[in-house]
């Protein structure tokens, strides 16, 4: 199978890597693709919580690497989205539990069976990041429209270039068009001017994300909100559809008047 391994990273913590990974993975699965989303944040795993699969973890990637289970046994199927599987990280270990070679070998074993393997990278640029990008065919960098997160994105893009992962693509997360207009926030143009990278998606700030994360329900499953739509658009761009980039609005006049779907 022609599989694509995509690592989602950011340098800075708290920009929305895990939510982004969960939603893009779910959206790809809802489009009929066979998808694994792998949590590379060993010791601080979150992807299982965002997906609402926490209490189904029996084995994790470290169990597989250390020979306690087959890879199949570590995969947890998310029945809400067709062929979507989670490969959880170990919570009781740290980033040294898996080295880049082991990561590459483990992900290669999944390549035959899945269309897309998304890897949720930990924050930072140390070993955890190096392990998460080692098997990647493509790197997506999540950034928020503020200076420190853009600076860290620049660092991470440089590192992934040095690792010869090709040009990283950008996801600009939590943009608020009203605040951009007031110049409180960097605009998409400001960010691309600094980073010189191609943007694969712009996700608006959306209150729905917080509640859906807490409920373990990725927004793409059932929401018509603007963030959910932005994630679906990114998934369509990943599979090669030509979806024009639209600047999402954070609630137009009419949406505010009638309440959001």
């Amino acid at each position, binding site marked *: 199978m022609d599989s694509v391994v995509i690592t989602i990273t950011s340098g800075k913590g708290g920009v929305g890597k895990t939510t982004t990974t969960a939603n893009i993975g779910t959206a790809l699965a809802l489009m009929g693709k066979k998808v694994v989303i792998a949590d590379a944040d060993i010791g601080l795993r979150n992807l299982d919580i965002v997906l609402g699969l926490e209490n189904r973890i029996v084995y994790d990637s470290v169990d597989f690497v250390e020979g306690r289970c087959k890879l199949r046994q570590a995969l947890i199927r998310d029945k809400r989205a067709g062929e979507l599987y989670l490969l959880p990280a170990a919570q009781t270990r740290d980033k040294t539990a898996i080295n880049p070679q082991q990561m590459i070998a483990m992900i290669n074993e999944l390549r035959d069976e899945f269309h897309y393997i998304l890897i949720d990278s930990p924050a930072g640029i140390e070993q955890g990041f*190096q392990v998460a990008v080692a098997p990647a065919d493509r790197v997506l960098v999540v950034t928020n429209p503020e200076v420190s997160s853009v*600076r860290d994105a*620049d660092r991470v893009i*440089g*590192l992934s270039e*040095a690792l010869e992962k090709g040009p990283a693509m950008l996801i600009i997360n939590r943009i608020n068009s009203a605040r951009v207009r007031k110049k409180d926030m960097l605009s998409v143009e400001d960010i691309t001017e600094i*980073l*010189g990278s191609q943007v694969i998606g712009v996700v608006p700030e959306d209150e729905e994300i917080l509640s859906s994360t807490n409920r373990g329900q990725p927004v793409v499953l059932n929401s018509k909100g603007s963030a959910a739509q932005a994630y679906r658009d990114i998934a369509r761009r990943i599979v090669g559809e030509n979806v024009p980039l639209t600047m999402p609005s954070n609630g137009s006049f009419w949406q505010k008047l009638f309440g959001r779907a």
Partner: protein
Amino acid sequence: MISIKGQRQGILILFSDAEGATWAAQLDELKAKLEQSGSFFSKARMSLDVKTLSLSLEELQAAKNLLEEHRATLWAIASQNDKTIANTRRMGLATDPNKEDPPALVNDVVAKENPFAAIADGTDGLLVQRIVRSGQTLRHPGHIVVIGDVNPGAELIAGSDIIVWGKLYGAAHAGSTGNDKAVVCALDLRPTILRIANMTRRVPEDKKRKHPKPEMAKIVRQEMNIYEWTP
């Protein structure tokens, strides 16, 4: 007798094997150069070319220690002498800096670009056609020319001039081996820190402008100033 060259793989020090060129004398010369050069070699990855000199393990180790004192890392020694090659291997170092790649460093992404020979003044240069990103250091004993932006958090260290055909928002150190004739030019000159030879200055915050003009920083009468850059 020794000479220093910038290379794709980092910095190369060429030793002489001419008659009368003793190892001890050349190490003294290297020591003097390292001391003159301030921070230029700090964190740099270096290789040596010792030609046909026959060197013992202790002699090679002396060179390695000297470089480490200046916070540089020795990773390869090229030689045409079998005894020297054997001793290099015993130290666990590479023996062919042209064929092997230096160890990767997360914090010092050395340019993969090839150096060029500048015609104007005979000094080598490094031409880089890309964005130099946060956390990346470009280091060259000659000129550095960047076609592209230098982002905040990036660092350029050149023995001679720095020319940026783009925005220079990172740190720039021209004339880092003590050359106070060196200049720093950019289409938008707003580095976080600007150094020429041993002088340092900060660029005022209020320099943020809508339509930046090309500018050149240089030392005139012991003072670093910024001038309009008109070729």
